């Protein structure tokens, strides 16, 4: 059996109808109902994004395990996806729910990072730059995240790391949009309280390493 990651996006030859050479997520999932291998295209397209999201939330080791599990689970539950454009928000939702089994570990990790200022769980492209420019504010952010309730943290990180809108977060977590607004409001209050010192002391984006890492 071919590995899904080795799938190509080339259209099948001999088709009479002219089709878009790159099938959409909806088409891939629909096709996977009769041809399971078609789900490999979803994997090729979104594995990097899901892994990076998990890596930034829970560190490298957990990300390796949970990213793989996310796609296996997504495949087995693909009929539950309410097809609407990109499947990515739904995949983020599965990854987030899987992370819930490890929420104590995630919280311990964030607390330790906030307390010591040393990130022993994530690996960076450039360790030196990450330590010098990212760790100080990052450690405060980690403390703030550790102080939040799990669902508030989920909503915040889907907004900030996965860059989802309110509607997409609601879809990912399978809750009403109003609930997402409430969670984000509470997350904002916690962040304001925990980061009060950091926001006064530093011009935020200049010290988060955006230019350096981006």
């Amino acid at each position, binding site marked *: 059996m071919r590995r899904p990651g080795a799938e190509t996006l080339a259209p099948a030859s001999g088709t009479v109808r002219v089709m878009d050479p790159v099938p959409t997520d909806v088409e891939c999932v629909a096709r996977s109902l009769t041809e399971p*291998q078609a789900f*490999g295209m979803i994997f090729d397209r979104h*594995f*990097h994004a899901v892994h990076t999201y998990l890596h930034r939330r829970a560190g490298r080791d957990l990300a390796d395990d949970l990213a*793989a599990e996310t796609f296996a689970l997504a495949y087995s539950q693909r009929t539950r996806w309410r097809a609407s454009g990109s499947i990515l928000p739904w995949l983020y939702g599965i990854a987030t729910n899987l992370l819930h089994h490890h929420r104590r570990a995630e919280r311990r990790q964030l607390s330790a990072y906030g307390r010591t200022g040393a990130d022993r769980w994530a690996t960076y492209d450039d360790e030196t730059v990450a330590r010098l420019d990212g760790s100080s504010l990052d450690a405060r952010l980690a403390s703030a995240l550790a102080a939040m309730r799990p669902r508030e943290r989920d909503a915040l990180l889907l907004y900030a790391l996965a860059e989802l809108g309110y509607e997409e977060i609601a879809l990912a977590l399978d809750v009403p949009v109003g609930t997402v607004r409430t969670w984000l409001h509470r997350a904002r209050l916690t962040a304001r309280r925990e980061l009060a010192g950091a926001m006064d002391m530093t011009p935020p984006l200049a010290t988060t390493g955006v230019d350096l890492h981006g």
Partner: protein
Amino acid sequence: MDELDLFRGFRQGVTPPDAETQRRAGDRLADALEPASSRVQVPSRRQGRRRLAVLAAAVLVVVVVTASALGTARAILSQGPVHVYTGTFRCDGKRGSFEVHLRFPSTGTRNWRIANGTGAYLRTTGGGRIPEVGGSGHAWRARLEGYLAPEGARQQRIAIILSERPNGAFLLTPLHKGALRRDSGTQSSFWTG
């Protein structure tokens, strides 16, 4: 500036997944795809042609397997008798311990079966094939695939990774939901034959 936007820079610049991680995740997904591809569907009128195609494929498989078997028989006769190596791996995990008996004929299918379980593996039966094995000493690794049936529970598809020998580690991963849970620990082995 909104406090929430500060978090956009959290852990920015983490390394992307490497090829090995992607390969392992791809294998995990392939495991999930496999049973679905071989799932039997309820036939309908429209599937008449498909059934014919499946029948034709089955006939083709029988022909190929027969030819292959005859070829193997010829190879055995020309190369001498099949030598069978057997190995016993005692695995001590967090949920109990069990013994795995491996059978390695010099030609043909390599397979395994479970024996002598304790804890979660008490009176567990099952076995399967060994699609991947190789290396020596610290670099030795084998992947076992198959089904296990714990006492009083439905059989469950699992994979076991054995690494290093004679003493090393094992990792049992359920590929389907069921009574067995993920487990790992140490293993010690010896060979006969």
